[in-house]
Structures are given as C-alpha cells and as structure tokens.
C-alpha cells in the first residue's frame, strides 16, 4: 500500500486530501487506503477479464459460442465462492477496522478533567461557539462566547463538542480532522477530536442549509495550552442571562444571545 501511495499523490485519487492534523484521522485514512487497494485489485481483475474476453472470444476469433448455461453445481460453487471471497476480503476487513476505530476512537468519548467542552450552535449562515468558563457549567454568567465563526482549541487536548441548531440542519465539517457531525433541530449531537498541530484551519458546513450554505465558514485556531488560556481570558464573559433558552431568546443584529443548554451526559 505504501508503494501505491508513492506512485501517485493521493493514491488512486490523484489529489491529496487536506492535511490530517488530528489524533485519529489516520484511522479513516487507513480504512480508505485499504479500500482503495482492494477495489483497485478487484476492478483490475474485472478489466483484465473483460479485455481478455474481448480479445479471445470476439465473434471473428470465436465464431461458435459454447452452449453452457452455467447452471451446474460447480458453477454455483464457483460464483458463490467468489461472492464470499469478496465479502471476506473486503467487507469483513473494513468492517472490523471500522468497528475497532469507532470503539477505540470516534465513539469513545473522553472523560475527565483535561477535556475541553464546547457548545456549538450553527445558524443560517454562521457558527456560534460557547465555552463554559471557570465553573465548567454552561448557561452561567461566566460563559464565554467569542465572536461568530471564531473557534480556538488547545493542541494535544481532547475536545468534545455538542451541537444543536438555531434554525435548519447544518453539519459541522472539519476537513483537516476527517470528521463531520450534523446539527439537527430538537436534538443535541456530539463529536470529539484532538488536534496534534497548531495552526489556522477551516470549518465548513456540509449540509445544505440555504442560499449562503457555501460561505458558512468558520475559522479554527489550534494553539498551545497557554495561548488558548490567554485567548479565553482576554474575552469578556457573557454576563447575566434572564431568559435562558436552548436556542436563544433574543437576537441582536442577527446574532442570537443567551443560548445554551445544560451539558448532556452521554452514555
């Protein structure tokens, strides 16, 4: 596989995906690379068979076809064996890989003190983020809400986000982390990830949400723990909320205010 990867940038797909800077993105790349490898193999077999048949069994070279219904036991055994071979060499392998990755990483939400929790509420067409502040509770006076579309996270720290939406369905898509998660009205969904490299990255909305869906862009800054803390400290806490609501009671110039939900404990 490694060799195939070197022959072409991006393997069989010619173009490289965005740089993976996450802890677990390599798992997704690995599943994709294995699938690349096996489907290339099987497709090559099909193409070779086709070319061979065209060359060997065209009507000029082979004017008389053999009378064969392919309905004998040996044929059945052969085709079923091929079916099972495909199933066990492709499906079972990627399924095992995928299950393992889900169990070890994507569905294995980190717990404990050093986890950074963020609430995300997209709206048409912007991203709202909320940090819990010192008390580690959402919906309290010391919550920190940076300006729209700005998200900072510390490097090498697990980040858990919970999402719901202000209006229609959006999808929080981090190309550099290989992940995305829908935000659907009426429900809170969750996702976690961990950055391994500092830098500036982009957040996109992956689910069609209206005419400006294409420019619903967020800016993700991955920085060191200290930079992150000082950034967070430099922001004014949101202050008192009288009317607290899951999706915001008021709107000031299109920006919803006083939205938050109590952090949902998962599993």
């Amino acid at each position, binding site marked *: 596989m490694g060799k195939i990867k070197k022959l072409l940038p991006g393997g069989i797909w010619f173009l490289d995906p965005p740089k993976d800077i996450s802890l677990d993105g390599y798992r997704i790349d690995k599943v994709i690379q294995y699938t690349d490898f096996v489907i290339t193999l099987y497709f090559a077999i099909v193409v070779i068979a*086709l070319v061979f048949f*065209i060359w060997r069994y*065209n009507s000029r070279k082979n004017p008389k076809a053999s009378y064969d219904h392919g309905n004998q036991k040996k044929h059945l055994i052969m085709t079923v064996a091929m079916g099972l071979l495909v199933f066990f060499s492709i499906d079972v392998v990627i399924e095992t890989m995928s299950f393992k990755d889900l169990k070890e990483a994507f569905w294995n939400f980190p717990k404990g003190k050093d986890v950074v929790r963020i609430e995300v509420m997209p709206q*048409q067409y912007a991203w709202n983020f909320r940090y819990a502040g010192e008390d580690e509770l959402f919906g309290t006076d010391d919550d920190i809400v940076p300006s729209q579309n700005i998200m900072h996270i510390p490097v090498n720290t697990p980040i858990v986000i919970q999402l719901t939406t202000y209006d229609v*369905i959006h999808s929080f898509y981090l190309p550099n982390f290989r992940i*995305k998660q829908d935000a659907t009205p009426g429900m809170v969904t969750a996702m976690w990830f961990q950055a391994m490299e500092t830098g500036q990255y982009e957040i996109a909305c992956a689910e*069609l949400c209206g005419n400006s869906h*294409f*420019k619903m862009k967020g800016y993700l800054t991955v920085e060191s723990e200290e930079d992150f803390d000082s950034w967070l400290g430099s922001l004014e806490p949101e202050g008192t909320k009288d009317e607290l609501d899951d999706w915001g009671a008021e709107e000031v110039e299109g920006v919803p205010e006083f939205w938050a939900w109590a952090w949902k404990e998962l599993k």
Partner: protein
Amino acid sequence: MHSESFWRKDIFSTDHKTIGKQFLFFGIFFLLFGGFQAMLLRWQLAYPGQPVPWWLMGFLYEGTGGIIDPDGFNRLFTMHGTIMIFWAITPILIGAFGNFLIPLQIGARDMAFPTLNMISFWTFFLSGVVLLLSHFLPAGSASGGWTSYPPLSLPGGGIPGLGQAFWTLSVTLMGAATMMGAINYIITVIRLRAPGMTYWRMPLSVWGLWLTSILNAIFVPVIAAGLIMLLLDQLLGTQFFVAGRLAAGGGGDPLLFQHVFWIFGHPEVYILILPVWGIVSDLLAIYSRKPAFGYKVTSICMSTIVVLSSIVWGHHMYTTGMSPLLGKAFMFLTLLISIPSSIFFFNWLGTLWRGSLHFDPPMLYTMSVIWVFGLGGLTGLYNATVTSDIYLHDTMFVVGHFHYTLAASVLFGGFAAIAHWFPRMFGRMLNPLMSKIHFWGTFITLNLVFFNMMVVGYAGQHRRIYNPSEYEFLQPLADMNVFITYAALVLGLFQILYLFNFVWSLVKGKVAETNPWRATTLEWTMDYPIPHGNFGEIPQVYHGPHEYSNPNTDQDWAPQTVEIKSS
C-alpha cells in the same frame, strides 16, 4: 383492424406499446432538460460567478448580467437531481421499457389493466407539468435539494415562495403514477404469462422490471406518507418535521423525515437499477450468442438484493448522531449486499466467457455497464463504512459514486435498451456508426467527469456549494473543477449527437428486418408494426429465454416458441 381516431390511438391510447413510447419521449425530454441544468451547474463550479456564455444560453440569466446567483444555483441542483431521478430515469427505464417489454416478452396482449396504464401515464405527465410550472413561480422553483430535508424545505427554512410545495406536490403525483404502473406490472407478470412461460423462463429483463415494481408497490407509499406530512407542514402550518426555535409551541421531529425518506430512498436506488441489471443480463447473452450464465442464480440474487435493500437505509444517516448499535447494524447489513451483487456480477462475466461476442452498439453500451457499475458498486464501500463515510459523507465523492451507480449505469443500460429495441419500437435501426461514435465519446468523457468528481470529493470538496473558492483547503482543486467541467461539456455535446441520431434514424434509419439481432424472446416473433393485441395467437413457450448456440439446433438461436428436439 378497425381504425381508431388519432386521440384514441396516439394520445389517450391504452396500447402498452404506445404508452411505452410516450414514456420514452417524455423521459428523453426531461433527460435533456436535466442534462442542460448539469452543464450550468458545472459552469458555475468551474468559473464561480462568471457570466454564463451565450452558447450555454446565458440569456437565461439576463437579469443578473449572465451570472448564476446562489439561489439560482441551489435551484439548479435541486431540479437536476429531482428531474433526473423521477422524471428521466424512472419514465425511460420503468415507464418506457416496463410497458413495452413486459407484455411482449411474456406473451400477453397488453397490460392487465390497460386503462389504468393510460391513467398512469397521464398522471405522470401532469406531475411533470406541475414540476415544470414551478420554474415560473415568482420566487422560483424548489431549492432545498432533491432530498428536501425539513426544516429547510419548510416556510421557516428561508426558501421563499411556493417552490417547495410545488416540488412536494409534483413528486407525490409522480408517486401515484408510479404506483398505478407498479400494480399493473406486478399483476401482468403474475396473470398474463403465455402458456409455457413459467417464472423461470421469463427473460431477466422481465425479472428486473417485476422486482422493481414490487419494490415500488411497497415503498412508494412510504415516501407518499412522508410527502403528505411535508406538504401539510408547508401549506397548513402543521409541525410534523419542525423542532427547536422554529417550532412555536408544539414541534415534531425533522430526523423522522430523513428516516422515511431513506426507507424509500435506498430501495429507490434499486428500483432504478434493477431493470438495467435485467436488461444487461439478457443483452449480454444475446450478443455473446450464449445462454446467460447462472440464470436462476442471477434472478435469486436480484431478489435477495430487493429484500436486503429495505433494511439498510441508515447508511445515509451515519452523521446524524445515530446510536452506535444502529450504526453498526446498518453498516453490516449494507455490506451484506455485496455478496449477491458480486455473484451476479461474476455471472455477467461468466456469460461472456467462451461466448462469441458481437460488438454491435447495444453490446458496447451493455459492456460499459459492467465497467461503470463495477466502479460504482465498489466505491459504495467507502460510503457503507461508518468511519470513511464520516469523512466522505456530503462530499463530491458521494456525488461521483451515485452518478456511477445511477446516472452512468442507468444511462448506458438505457442506451443499450434503446439501441436494441429501437427496431421493435420504430421499425428502423439506430444508425450504428453514429451510435458507436456516441458510445466512445460518452464512455470516455463520462468516466472523466464522474471519476474526477470522486477525486475532488476525496480531496475534501463538499457538495452543493456555489463557490468552492470560498475555502482555502479547496483552492488546489480549482484546476480539476475546470477540467471536469470541460469533460462534462464534451459529454453534453455527444448527447446532442445522440439526439440527432435518434431523430434521424426515426425518419431515415435503415428499415429493420423482423429479428435483426437473432434474439429468442417473444417480442421478436411478429412483423413490424406490432398490432394492438400483439400476437395473432398467444404463443406456446417451450424453453427459457437464452437458447443460443444449442447444438441441437441448426442456427445458433432457438426462439422460445420453437421446440428443441434433442437428437
């Protein structure tokens, strides 16, 4: 023959052959319409915000200086998807060939319920008119995607006007028409098979169309239920699919629509592709002059897939926040489909093996289905797997993948079917030279377009975005997007050639003999034009549909009506 008036004979005809042709012309019209929309989409993706040139009918966007605006772009892909699936593929494969082939191939005089058949077409026609009219609404047609997810597709979602309601209404009407057709096809196959035409002697085309109809009869009502609820939300202000801030008081569940949509939506994929599988299986046998390899196994595999297809819809919803258990179950079930799929795929290769291959245009189109469906099927693995789908979901990769399985396979299947049965439908041959040029042009450019769509998707480009250059991580894909667009434009050019070939052959094509392909099935047993009622006397069937190169016959084929005496 008593003569019927023009209205009875050509417009409100109950003759399945006429209705089949009506569906064909109807479908081709919409295919061109949706195809043209695809060209505009591609223009915008390659040159975002630049005026559409005159040769792509830039004057349509006169009001905005020739530029497609974001709303217009959303309307384009919404309508492109809707039209291609429901008003192009459905009428051509199921409407036209279902109608034309089923009675002829099983030896029936017509459909079981000819009047219902006629009503089905005109309901379909009406639904198409409603859809077309929606383009002239003051606020424009629907723009919420072909999936029309609420709450975006509801009044609170921000799409102005009645476009979304028109969309829902027209798709519901289309569903009603499909339903009538499905009842007809199912019963026709059960009741009107000629003497000797057992289920195991039916051509695989009929098997495919029959299984498609069964899926339609079961799952179209499911989407109908969802669409009725959506329509009530859109027009009466109920809140079945509204939640959160947009739901004043009450509130329902937007996710429920996704479930209902995909419970229908996944079988719909097979509804569209099953007729092609059947047709391909038959045509491979005819042009290899060899019996279809593992006929029974192929039809059993197709039936197995029909059953499996109804329990895998969740693979479209991995990123919605599905419970881990459900996610795993849907992944496992989806991957199971690859067993029957690969079995009948190998049967296709088995048919070619040791055959005597004749590369007439229908065979070229048919063999290319093996190619495109192979690629389409294999790339489905990425989307069936939860983890890789988390990355690839809602990207151009998915778009490329389903264009391979649906657009490419169904188009080539449709081209093959049209080329093969053109002499039966119109009494003339489709010009072979033009067909071959069209084949090669389409095959090459189509692969360039759809494969590279997957490439840009793998490189991260999400779908349904008006302007990829908004994002820095998509900057490196700009050249590829331009390349895809030019390939698509050339692909479009070749379809103009096809249209020319179709019309030219209709008028000036070589007059066909009764059975130009030396095929064994019943539709080739009578002279052109096939009369209303098809058969002088209902034929007796003696054997299966693929008796080619039987050593006990003088020629290399034995019609189903001729008994083979073993020597």
